[in-house]
C-alpha cells in the first residue's frame, strides 16, 4: 500500500465512530462605521505606513511626489495613471534586475478598514508578485470604493480571483520584525517603505 492509501485508511479508522459533524457557527461581524475610508487610513497609518488621500485629478502629481527623487521605477501593465520614466514590466525582468529598481507603483484589489490591509490579486494594474516585493518602495493606489469594512467582506470579494487561480498578497504596513528582544523594526526583506494613496471615487470630493 502506498503512503496515500495508508494515510487515508488511518484517517478513516481514526474517525470510524464519528457520525454527525456539526457545521461551524457563523463568524460574527463587527458593527458598521460611518466612515469606512477614515478608519482605513487611520489603521494603515498605525503600521507606520505613509497614507495620503487625493482626487483623481491630483493622482499623477501625488504619485510623483511619493516617489524618491531620481528613483528607478517599475510599473505593471495597465496601471491607471501615467508615471514618468517608469519601466513597464513585461515579465522579463529578473530578480537581480528588479533589485536595482528603487520603487514600484501599483493598484490594489481591496482595502480592509478594520485591519488597515491592502490586498493585491495581481490582476491588471497590479502585476506579478515579484515587482511589488523586490523594490524597496511600494506606492499602492486604493480607490475609496475598494475599501471594505472587515476581513469577511474582503474574503467574499476575493473569491472570484482565487477561483481563477490568481495569487493573493495581503499587505498590512511595511515589512517588519520583532525578533530581536521584541523591538519592532520596520523593514526587513519586503519593501521598507509602503506608501498608500487613497484615491477618491469619480464624482467624490
Amino acid at each position, binding site marked *: 500500500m502506498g503512503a496515500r492509501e495508508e494515510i487515508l485508511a488511518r484517517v478513516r479508522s481514526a474517525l470510524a465512530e*464519528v457520525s454527525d459533524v456539526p457545521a461551524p457557527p457563523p463568524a460574527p461581524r463587527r458593527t458598521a462605521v460611518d466612515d469606512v475610508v477614515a478608519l482605513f487610513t487611520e489603521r494603515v497609518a498605525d503600521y507606520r505606513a505613509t497614507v495620503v488621500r487625493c482626487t483623481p485629478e491630483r493622482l499623477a502629481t501625488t504619485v510623483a511626489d511619493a516617489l524618491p527623487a531620481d528613483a528607478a521605477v517599475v510599473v505593471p501593465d495597465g496601471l491607471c495613471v501615467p508615471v514618468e520614466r517608469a519601466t513597464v514590466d513585461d515579465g522579463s525582468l529578473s*530578480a537581480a534586475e528588479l533589485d536595482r529598481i528603487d520603487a514600484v507603483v501599483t493598484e490594489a484589489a481591496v482595502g480592509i478598514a478594520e485591519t488597515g490591509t491592502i490586498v493585491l490579486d495581481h490582476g491588471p494594474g497590479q502585476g506579478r508578485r*515579484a515587482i511589488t516585493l523586490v523594490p524597496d518602495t511600494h506606492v499602492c493606489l486604493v480607490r475609496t470604493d475598494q475599501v471594505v469594512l472587515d476581513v469577511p467582506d474582503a474574503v467574499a470579494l476575493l473569491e472570484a480571483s*482565487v477561483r481563477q487561480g*490568481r495569487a493573493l498578497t495581503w499587505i*498590512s504596513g511595511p515589512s517588519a520584525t520583532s525578533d530581536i528582544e521584541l523591538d519592532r523594526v520596520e523593514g526587513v*526583506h*519586503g519593501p521598507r517603505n509602503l506608501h498608500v494613496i487613497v484615491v477618491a471615487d469619480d464624482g467624490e470630493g
Partner: protein
Amino acid sequence: MSNATFVGMPVFPTAARDALEDAQLRHNLAHATGTIRAKRARLVEEVDEVSDWEDLRLAGAGVKEQALLTLEEQLLQLERTLTAKGATVHWAGDAAEANRIVTGIVQRHGVDEVVKVKSMVTQEIGLNEALAAEGIAAWETDLAELIVQLGDDLPSHILVPAIHRNRAEIREIFLRAMKGVGRPAPDDLTDEPAVLAAAARAHLREKFLRAKVGISGANFAVAETGTLVVVESEGNGRMCLTLPEVLISVVGIEKVVSTWDQLDPLLRLLPRSSTGERMNPYTSMWSGVTPGDGPQEVHVVLLDNGRTRALADEVGRQALRCIRCSACLNVCPVYERTGGHAYGSVYPGPIGAILNPLLKGVGNPGPEGEQVDSLPYASSLCGACFEVCPVRIDIPSVLVDQRVKVVDARRGNGAVASLSSGHLAEALAFKGAAVALADARKLGFGERFTGVGLRMARRLSTLPGLSKWAGTRDLPPAPQESFRAWWKRTDGGRSEGER
C-alpha cells in the same frame, strides 16, 4: 554549519531545572511573553467593543473541527484542486518519507542549496538535517531562525524562536558566523535591532536572488480552491514563495480547511493571538501554479507523521485544531519560567505538552519515551492556555487525559516503576479523587477531613517520597470549615455573617 537537534533531551523536570538557573533566559522570557500578552489582550478588548471575541473563537474552532472530522473528504478534495491547478501532490506517512520526497525533488534540479520560510513542520521532520546529509544547504530566512541557525542553536518559542538571545549575543553570532556562509556582517555592526535586521537583509538578499528552490510549510490549505496560505511579517516568506523556480510546501494533513470563506475567522484570530497585531504584515496565498507569476513548478507534500494517531484519540483530537499562534506559551506560568528548550521539541509550551505525546504516543521505551511521557506533567493545570486559545483547545483536559494514558501505558508494559515516583503518587491521588468525586456522599465525607488532611500534608511534606510532590506546590492554609458545611450553615450565603 551543523544542525542542532532536540534528540536526547532529558525529561522535562531535569531540563527545566537547568533552564531555571539561567537568569538571562528568565529575564528575556518574562519581557517577551509579558509584552505579547499585553498586546493581545488590548486587541481582544478592541474586538469585544465592536464584535464578540468568544463568538469568533467558536467560529474558528468550528471550522477546524469540521475539517478534522471530515478529513478524508477534505484531503481528497485538496488533492483534486491542487492537481487541477498545476501542483504535484505527494503523500508522506512519516518524517523519513517526507524528507526523501523533498530531497529527491531538490536533487532532480541539481542544486546544492534551498531557501526556507520559517516552518514548524519542516523542523518537526528534521528536514534541514536530511538535506545536509545529501550535501544540500537549507538557508533559514526568518530573522529569528537565521539567528538560531547561525548560532548552531535550537528554537525556543513558536513565534520568536530566538527569544532566549539578547541583542549583544545576536551581534556576536552575526559577526562570527555570517562570513562562513555568505555575505559577512559589516565590521561596524552595532547591537541596535535595526542595524542587525539590516545586516540580515543584506546577508540573505543574495541568497533570495539566486535561489532555484524554495521550501515552505503552510498555515492553512483550502480544500475547495487548492489554496495554500503563509502568514508572516518580514517578507522572507514572500521572497521564498515568489522568486524561486520551484516551490515545495510540506503541509501537515491537519492544516486543511474545507471552504474558501472559512479562512475568515482564522485570519482574524491568528495575528491577534500570535503577535498581537490586527493583521500581520504579509499573507501570501497561492493555488498551484500561476502562469507567468512565481514558481512554475509547485509541489505539495501532505504529511501524517503521527497526526492520524492524534486524530484517533477522541479527547486529544482537538489539539490538531492548533493554528500555531503561541498564545498559550505566552500565558503559561511554566513556560514563562523554563522557556521552550526544556520541552525537548519544536512544539513547546502547553500545546507542546499535549501535541508531542499525541503525535508520538505514550509509554514508549527508552529515554525518548520517558521524555515524551514527562510532558503532560509540565503544567499546573491553571487553565490560562485554554482561555487564550483562539480555536478553543481545552489543553488542561487533554493534559489530564494524557497523564492517565501515560500511567496506563506504563502500567501495561510493567514500567510504572520507571515513571518518576512523583508522577506515580499523583496518579494514585487522582485515582482517589475519581472515587470520591463519583459519589456525593463520599465527597461530603472526604471534605470534612480536608482541613485535617491539609494540616497533615503540611507536616508530611517534609517526608521522603512526598517531599517531591509537596516541594513544588504551595498548600493552602486549612479552612476552618468545609464548603458544604458553610453552605448548610449560611443557606448558600444568604445568611452569611450570622455565625
